């Protein structure tokens, strides 16, 4: 046995401020205070429910008898006129043949509070809508803090990576960066042809011994800036030892061009470098190989070959450039 309660309109308005009362013929006869905030009175009271709202699910567009079939079902409704706010609804029959439709904003809540300028007083004290709005704002504030943290971490990671790939004194790339680049360029799927130069400074030890380490460091900085100036932006210049450098020239296997570049680098390095009242004089020996000499270029093999060519330069009296072309075998040689 169920007990019955009878509630006055005032009680309904207080308990469920977003309700609508519909008479026997499907016409709206009363709207709770919040429901009344959604439409002007003349667009609501005295109108047929289905002229104001359309039932999206379950699909229903008919008359009052259809309406009765929706009793107790979860309803998705939408205003026919703009703003086309979507609502959730539940329909309940009353004793005298009238229907009570209780509404809620569901996920339209954010748009709706803005569209209808709703305030906390428009929601029942027991309705968690305001708490939900609070949570949406609090979560988005927290999320934006998280995003800021992520951005900072990302920046720090990039800085750390750059630092890990940079030679601290000269700001050139270091051996790690060079190894990575060579590895990338020789990977079969992304293979790029390139020229590889190994450069060793001549007479650098004398600069250190005669003028001191400060002069040596000064010379290295000058060398770095010359190497940067004599190469393109996407060429890689790495300091791989005290006075050893490796230069990688992507998409450049033209030995004549590489010879010209090497000659220009040597000429510029031979210009006296002033340090205080002294003039530091150095030169460089260079050995070069190119990826197109190998059917499957291997970084270690190419570095070793460039090194061989470099030592040929040293043995031939320093301050010169040698192309590696002696040591390759007939079986892995490609016609050039």
């Amino acid at each position: 046995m169920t007990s019955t309660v009878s509630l006055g309109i005032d009680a309904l308005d207080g308990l469920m401020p977003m309700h609508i009362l519909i008479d026997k013929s499907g016409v709206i006869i009363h709207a709770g205070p919040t429901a009344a905030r959604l439409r002007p009175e003349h667009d609501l009271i005295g109108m047929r429910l289905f002229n104001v709202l359309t039932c999206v699910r379950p699909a229903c567009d008919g008359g009052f008898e259809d309406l009765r079939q929706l009793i107790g079902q979860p309803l998705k409704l939408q205003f026919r006129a703009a703003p086309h706010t979507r609502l959730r609804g539940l329909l309940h029959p009353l004793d005298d043949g009238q229907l009570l439709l209780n509404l809620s904003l569901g996920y339209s809540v954010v748009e709706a509070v803005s569209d209808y300028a709703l305030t906390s007083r428009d929601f029942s004290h027991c309705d968690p809508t305001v708490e939900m709005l609070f949570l949406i704002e609090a979560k988005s504030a927290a999320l934006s803090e998280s995003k800021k943290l992520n951005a900072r971490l990302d920046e720090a990671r990039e800085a750390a990576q750059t630092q890990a790939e940079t030679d601290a004194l000269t700001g050139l790339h270091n051996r790690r960066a060079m190894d990575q680049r060579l590895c990338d360029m020789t990977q079969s799927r992304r293979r790029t042809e390139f020229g590889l130069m190994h450069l060793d400074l001549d007479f650098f030890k004398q600069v250190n011994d005669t003028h001191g380490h400060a002069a040596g460091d000064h010379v290295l900085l000058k060398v770095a800036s010359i190497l940067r100036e004599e190469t393109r932006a996407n060429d890689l210049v790495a300091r791989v030892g005290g006075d050893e450098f490796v230069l990688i020239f992507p998409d450049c296997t033209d030995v004549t061009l590489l010879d010209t570049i090497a000659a220009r680098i040597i000429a510029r390095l031979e210009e006296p470098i002033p340090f205080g009242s002294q003039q530091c004089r150095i030169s460089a020996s260079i050995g070069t190989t190119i990826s197109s000499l190998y059917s499957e270029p291997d970084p270690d093999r190419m570095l070793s070959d460039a090194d061989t060519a470099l030592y040929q330069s040293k043995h031939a009296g320093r301050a010169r450039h040698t192309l590696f072309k002696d040591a390759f075998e007939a079986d892995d040689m490609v016609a050039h």
Partner: protein
Amino acid sequence: MLPQLEDRYVHGLINKSVQGFLISNHGSDAWAEIARMANLPPQGFESMLTYPDSMTNKVLDAACTYVGCTRASLMEDIGMFLVTHPDLEAVRRLMRFGGPTFEDFVLSLDEVHDRACLAVPELTLPKISLNDTGVGQYVITTQWQVVGAISLVSGVLRAMADDYGALVVLDAGPRLHSDGGIMETLSVFIAEPEFAAGRSFTLAERLA
């Protein structure tokens, strides 16, 4: 009884707010010096990490020494800063969700701890309880692991009273140490709920 794990940590949002207040009111150089005194890295706190409460206490102590003020007045200034600084409009708005009048706001204070946890689960704000002591009169009790929670609340209340346009009288009460942390009290008297025009607040401002 040992304190709960959460009670020994202070969320980065709180620590970062302290840092933000010190930089905003006293400058970056002051912050750098306070951070140095508290053995913190100069970049200070991250807002989405948590820190042992000893770090929060060190920073607050260093700030008091540097500025030459008491913990209570520092915390009260931080509380005011949180709801009045334009960069922290989000905080003011979240506070205004407490209710349409200043009294509703006061009555919502005992939910602040739970509301904060709902948004950021590790964010443990002071636990606040309320006792009615007469018409428009309440005694607020805070329970937190850091000394000065009541002053923080007092600063927030002063600023929020301005925001709502209410006239209030605040009086600090006694402090007690208990198992659950430090308990501090404050009496609030709402002398005039609508003393002046407050600032506007609509639910939709930030959401649209």
